[in-house]
């Protein structure tokens, strides 16, 4: 009934590393840290807050992709 038990899918560290990344970026993208970028300066025309959120988000995606593909 069950598929064969396979307790260790991938390296055991992977889950923990991914969880750490999720936690880290959750802090980066929330108050109080977010307040540091919540001012109306602009970089290359784009408001700082927009740019910060966008780039952090992109970094999160790239980091996840790297962690996930690394062991493959």
């Amino acid at each position: 009934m069950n598929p064969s038990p396979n307790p260790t899918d991938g390296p055991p560290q992977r889950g923990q590393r991914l969880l750490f990344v999720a936690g880290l970026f959750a802090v980066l993208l929330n108050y109080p840290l977010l307040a540091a970028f919540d001012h109306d300066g602009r970089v290359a025309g784009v408001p700082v807050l927009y740019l910060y959120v966008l780039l952090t988000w992109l970094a999160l995606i790239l980091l996840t992709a790297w962690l996930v593909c690394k062991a493959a």
Partner: protein
Amino acid sequence: MNKLLVIAFSFGYLALLFGVAYAAERRSAARKSLVANPYVYALSMAVYCTAWAYYGSVGRAAHQGLSFVGIYLGPGLLAPAWWLVLRKIIRVCRQQRLTSIADFISARYGKSASLGALVTGVCVLGVVPYIALQIKAIASSFVVLTGGDQGAGASGAALFAAGTLAMFTVLFGVRSVEATERHEGVVLAVALESLVKLLAFLLLGAFVTFGLFGGFADLFDQAAAEPALRQLFTFKSAGTSGAEWLTLLVLSMSAVLLLPRQFQVAVVENVAEDHLRKAMWLFPLYLLIINLFVLPIAFGGLLKLGGRGLDADTFVLALPLATGHSWLALLTYLGGLSAASSMIIVETIALSVMMSNHLLMPLLVRVPAARPEGQRRWFAYLGRVALTSRRLAVLLVLALAYGYYAGVGHQLPLVNTGLVSFAAVAQFLPAVLGGLYWKGGTRRGATLGLLAGFGVWFFTLVLPTLVGPGRLPVSVLSDGVGGLAWLRPGALFGLDGLDYLSHGLFWSWFFNIGLYVGLSLAWPPTALELRQADVFVDVFRRRSLAEEITGWQGRTPLPDVRALLLGFLGKKRTNQALRAFAERFPDALPTAENAVYPAAQLPVHALPAADPRLLTYAEKLLAGTLGPASARMLLASVAGAEQISYDSVVGILKESQQLLEANRQLQKQSRQLQRLTDELRQAYDQLQVLDMQKDEFLYTVTHELRTPLTSIRALAEILADNPDLEAEERERFQLTIGREAERLTRLISLVLDLEKFESGQASLDRTPLVLAEVVQEAAEAVAQLARERGTELRVEVPASLPPLPADRDRLMQVLINLLSNAIKAAVPGRPGRIAVLAWPAADALLLCVEDNGKGIVLAEQHQIFDKFFQAHHQTTRKPEGSGLGLAITKKIVELHQGRIWVESAPEQGARFFIELPLAVPARAAAPFSSSFQL
């Protein structure tokens, strides 16, 4: 635009979806799946972006700036954790054949039918307005595009859209009675729609940013010039608080995991767990890209169309229309249509299965228990009922959604309804996460927590939307229900100062989590709950023993089970499933000849009984069709009550824990054993080498002994055989015999010496020595030899050196050895020069014996301290010693805890260095192998 043209394109687009879905189903039947890859999987997850994202994000951005992005950033933040959470849900659902969030929660908490019904109810109430929202989006976008009036035109478009999508869903979404079956046609269509909406939105965004404006900088520059728009650049001035932002993130995280449609595409339609790996970053990337242009479009709309009093939700269409790009507007409209239709299709499928399995089936399967004789026919009938009821549920859901849209939906802005839906679904989060990671959660806690959370959700988030003329009075909001100030929906119990969403989420989760955890702790779980908890929480660690052993114990005739499966699954699928079972458990099914007896000819007690494992298997098969609660009731109607005693479950769980622990201990011990084995093997190898060296040593020693013996014997024989030998000759022979015997004695005493050192029996008699005296004495001992060879011997050892604790005789032996070696090393025909130098080092004395002899090649420098090294080279050199001198020297130096080494080059002499410590170190315990070193 021309109405007919828009209608033609809409239907053309939907016809394309039908075609794609049909093609995918054909390919799937031919086992050449188009959807079994991570890219389609990730794209199908993008069903998360509905018409609300498509139109509503721009609307929200135009009012509140960046805060809309929280709804897409939340899933992005959660995605890395999918590897732990979502993968576990997928594994559990595959093992237990669960097909919806209601199945999941119901199965986890003791396969409770009432909990399943409750979850279904929450889903329907929470999500139907959300579907209505999509219908509204289709209708109003149609109206904006064709320029008709909002009344009749919109309703007509909405009705047509709902009708077509209902047809599509019934055709491709409800095909088989087995809900575990994947819908490849639907998935491919949804993936395609995700691509369409992405491309359409990007095109529009690029058009606005680079066509209407001169790029991002220009657009934001123009926006910055207007104070009202400049306010939207930051959270602070746009009025988004930290709490609201956090709430948006949390809400969207739970939504992407638990919304019925997300559960459907991410869990039920998942082909392989491994696809998750790519989806974990592709899906967030999709969300990022589709949101790139939301703010530019919002600002573009505000700048270009600001004065016209347009709803910001329609900017997406109004911008290209206002600038005369009607084809772009049509494309954008189709993108919105795809966003709305994919959401409607998948959400409806998921809801219809839930409604049929959790609202209708539990009622129907109770019926036959009263009349056993009609059971079989009733079951066959039920299978068809299940399928039909799901189709009807599709129609019902869409009818409800349309009704909601027609009734109240007109006034609602897009984004609020969506968020309220999210908050409804977020009520499942405690029960789901608790169910996955905490074994203590119980049915009672989950049910009451969910009920309370749902109640508070309704009070704080839904009630305010019902206020209006002809409905609830406004005083409810300002004065509280019944005039009670602490019952204000926006400030429950006087909690003021939060935005409505954070406020609602806070209170609903407060009661939800509080009751869930509190009640779970207050009453212990039942045996079935305990078993299910074990199955869910430990799904990755092991197969639950409890599930297999404490299942259906009663004696159930096999034909009854077969008939049950036949009724629901049909002949083909039943045979297939039983074959699969027989392959897994060859011992559980009776042999074929037993099974062919017609059941009617045998008395009941002679019928082959079904193995308990078969009953568990059948229950799971049926759970994939009817949901876990109905399947359990159905099986109970055949097999009698499930006999699970609390003690046996606890016993087995404890046992399996102990087994696990024992297993861990065993593994640890076997690792230790392995290490010991390795060490032993190393020691053995070392012994082997030593043994070989010993043999070699014995061989060389005997060889060395034989040479003088042979010459002694030969000379003695000559003397014996020739009595008339001349006296001078005889004397010469006798002298040689004497010398050879002396050499033999010396060799033997050296060997004995060496053995003494190696066996560790040698001891030192250390006394403080003046090195200069000892060296002088040694020099005198070899002076005769040096003179014979014409070698100059120079001693430069200062008398002021500190006294050296050493064994005088041994040290003398060392010095004489080195000096005589140096003398022997002299090159013939060149005057030899030998110097003995000494100087103090850190806490030792350094002694150097230097010669200008023939030197030692580098390769041999570390071998010369080996026993008989010289003897090995008898063929190449004439031996001038025993070959043991340096070996003994080295032993003596080491016994003094000193070091000896050589620096030399061929034809340039050699320098032997000895370092002897000044303080006598405590004798270190000899390691295991050191006594073997030669």
